[in-house]
């Protein structure tokens, strides 16, 4: 842990949260949990951006605020993505009666 500063710790927490999301997306078969894992990944990226923004706060005007604006945009995109994803989930559930992404009839989305 030599030379590891507080900004690095924040970035490592963000990276760990992102990796947890990757694990969820790859391992789970429940589409609800997969969507939640995607949210965790987005949160990891947001936390990383906020950390970098805090690091650049001493630079001239506008350097740090760009990262914060980007986080707000990412949050808006995430809200839209969840709304679409959950409505796709409900539409799929009406057809297949399952939220298993590997269910035999769920593959109709693939081709």
């Amino acid at each position, binding site marked *: 842990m030599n030379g590891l500063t507080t900004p690095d710790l924040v970035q490592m927490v963000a990276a760990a949260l992102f990796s947890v999301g990757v694990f969820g997306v790859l391992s789970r078969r429940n589409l609800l949990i997969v969507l939640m894992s995607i*949210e965790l990944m987005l949160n990891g990226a947001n936390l990383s951006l906020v950390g970098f923004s805090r690091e650049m706060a001493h630079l001239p005007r506008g350097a740090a605020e760009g990262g914060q604006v980007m986080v707000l945009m990412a949050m808006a*995109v995430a809200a839209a993505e969840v709304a679409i994803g959950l409505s796709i989930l409900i539409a799929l559930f009406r057809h297949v009666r399952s939220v298993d992404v590997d269910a035999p009839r769920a593959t109709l989305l693939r081709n």
Partner: protein
Amino acid sequence: MPTLLIILAGLLVVGAGLLTVTQRNPVRAALCMLVALAGVGALMLGLRSPFLAAMQVLLYGGAIMVLFTFVIMLLTLREDEMGPEPSDGSKLGAAFMSLLTLSVLWFGISRRGGASYEAPRLGEEFGSAQHFSTFLYTDYVVAFELVTVLVLAAVAGVIVLGRSAHRTSLEQTKIAGPGEEAHS
């Protein structure tokens, strides 16, 4: 923000995230995700971004979490509708891939030199709603408008997705309706 607090909040966030992706029950997973999102909000507060922390709680902890719980309530999944538990092999592969991602990211973080939180310019206004919106509505107004278009498209998409399913079910009821049966 003290290093110890960051470590504690980070452990809380990562632990709650791990519980989220391993819980079988969707309600429990959603609750664990709420804890993780709140922890990220606390970290944002410690990084001098109070406006973003408020947005994190309002948007993620409020809006998105309500959407998730509403869908869980609407579906009321039975055990067989959630699919079988993933096999040990796929879990192992997923763990390997995520650990690979983590090690690559950590390698990059450890290789960058001498990052620190300097604070000569930081006034009380940094990260506040007023300071933030000054930039949002001047330098980044185009991005802001584009996001409004995106949200509008999302609303239209949700309406289309919800309506088409509704219409097919209506057609099915019409086919099997009492009038048709009386006719045949």
